[in-house]
């Protein structure tokens, strides 16, 4: 009886996953088609599989620079979050004081605010401190924008670290810093991995923040921003955009597949209870 119940849900989940994958395949197929062909026969196989548009997009858009930029932004932002967010989340979760609540609110509040409502004032602020159009400015803003959700997620997970562990270590004479780095931080691995994946992908795929902060500095543009510029209300350069999009997704996919092993495998319940 139990076996059968599991099977039906299992089957459904596995079969349904195709619906999630199918669109990716369709995009991939369409990246080989000329514009009119794509419009007229969207679901059909491409007439030819030549990679010309791929090569042209690569060189025309200067993919190497774009990839280097995007990689830089992603890596530095994620490192920044990984250093600062768990620290703050941990301390805020363990400290019960008015200051702690205040800091928490200040950090979490932006989660409810639509970006559109402050994007202009943000650009004014960034330009006032002289960081407009710079890579540093973009990275700092990105870290700031990713911080609320990261802190919130880790904060919720700190509860999974039994406080007894910390108390034992304290009795053993360990200082607060050591407790944090050597005991708490490793135990946050599943949520940290989730946050890394989330933030890396968000930064990799970012369009609008890059547009606003980087502005006219074409040398600091990221990949998705450059591709997005190929569209407008009245023109669509799908022939370059689709190959570009496919190429930009490959690193993300690989990254996710590699990282997700860390979320599920590797951390078993035993590590916490033991």
């Amino acid at each position, binding site marked *: 009886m139990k076996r059968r119940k599991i099977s039906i849900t299992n089957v459904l*989940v596995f079969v349904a*996953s195709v619906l*999630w994958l199918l669109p990716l395949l369709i995009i991939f197929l369409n990246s080989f088609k000329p514009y009119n062909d794509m419009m007229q026969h969207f*679901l059909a196989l491409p007439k030819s599989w030549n990679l010309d548009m791929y090569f042209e997009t690569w060189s025309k858009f200067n993919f190497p620079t774009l990839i280097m930029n995007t990689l830089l932004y992603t890596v530095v932002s994620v490192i920044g979050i990984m250093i600062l967010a768990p620290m703050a989340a941990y301390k805020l979760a363990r400290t019960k004081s008015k200051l702690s609540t205040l800091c928490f609110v200040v950090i979490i*509040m932006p989660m*409810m605010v639509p970006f559109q409502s402050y994007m202009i*004032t943000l650009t004014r602020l960034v330009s006032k401190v002289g960081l407009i159009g710079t890579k540093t400015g973009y990275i700092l803003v990105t870290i*700031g924008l990713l911080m609320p959700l990261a802190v919130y997620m880790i904060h919720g997970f700190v509860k999974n670290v039994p406080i007894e562990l910390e108390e034992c270590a304290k009795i053993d004479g360990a200082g*607060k810093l050591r407790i944090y780095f050597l005991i708490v931080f490793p135990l946050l691995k599943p949520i940290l991995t989730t946050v890394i994946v989330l933030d890396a992908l968000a930064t990799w795929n970012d369009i609008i923040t890059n547009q606003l902060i980087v502005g006219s500095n074409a040398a600091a543009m990221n990949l998705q921003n450059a591709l997005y510029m190929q569209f407008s209300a009245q023109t669509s350069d799908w022939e370059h955009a689709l190959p570009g999009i496919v190429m930009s997704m490959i690193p993300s996919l690989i990254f996710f597949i590699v990282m*997700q092993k860390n979320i599920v495998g590797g951390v078993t319940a035993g590590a916490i209870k033991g």
Partner: protein
Amino acid sequence: MKRKKLKDFLIFAMFVFPAVAFVLFATDIPFFMNLYYSFFNWNGVSRDMAFVGFDNFIKIFSNDGLFWKSVQFTLKYAVFYVVIVNAIAFVIALVLSKEKKSSSVVRAFYYVPYIISLTAIGLIWKFILGPGFGALYDMTGWEFFDWSWLGTGKLAFIVVVVMTVWQNVGFYMVNYIAGIVTIPKELLEAAQIDGATRFQTVWKITVPLIMPSISICMLTALTFAFKLFDVIMVFTKGGPANATMSVAYNIYQEAFVNGKYGLATAKSLVFVAFVLVVTVIQLRVTKGKEVEA
């Protein structure tokens, strides 16, 4: 004692203040700069702006039907989205939280839409709903495929829900898996030995123990729903006839298309105040139910 307090404070500051500083810089301060602009009429470009006091706020409450329509849409959307996406993600996570290779691959499938750039997603759905449904209708003759999905307000609403659920379910799934994985296997096995059905195991053990995950997912889903913009911008543009206008899109339109920046910032303040209230309530509810392992 004072020394210890000072030391504790310094450690607290070292841990927390950098994060606070970043958030202040990137969001809090810019958002409150808006408070200033909401008292003016400004077109977003000019060096001059006219002080109008509370006019903008008065206008919101007396003469802005479209804004309240968008609030209604956003709230309705939030309810559907939060419930549906979490339910589906949870079930998928339950099935796929094993370490099998097949689970690993299928997990990646579900995550794919989350990675695809939004412009491509708009294109895909345009074709699914247009020629795609057209072809399916020719094949099956089901009325379902012949309805005007993007042309009618109610159906467009469903499209927006389905699109965003499809796009984001992978994210919540990953969160739930991260939570499910921390449940001690012994607990689950003990329950099964005691004769609990699968449903009972899930309801009485799994769910309470992953309350942190549920809490996170609920909140992120809620905040996503409240901030819904990208899909509207790329796909429906608020149509047909403003049926899918979200609050964020309304604010954007007011600021950048209508050139009424002061009014737009006033609206965002009103909306955020409202959202804060709702979120605090939601937080209280789920935090109260959390169980520590």
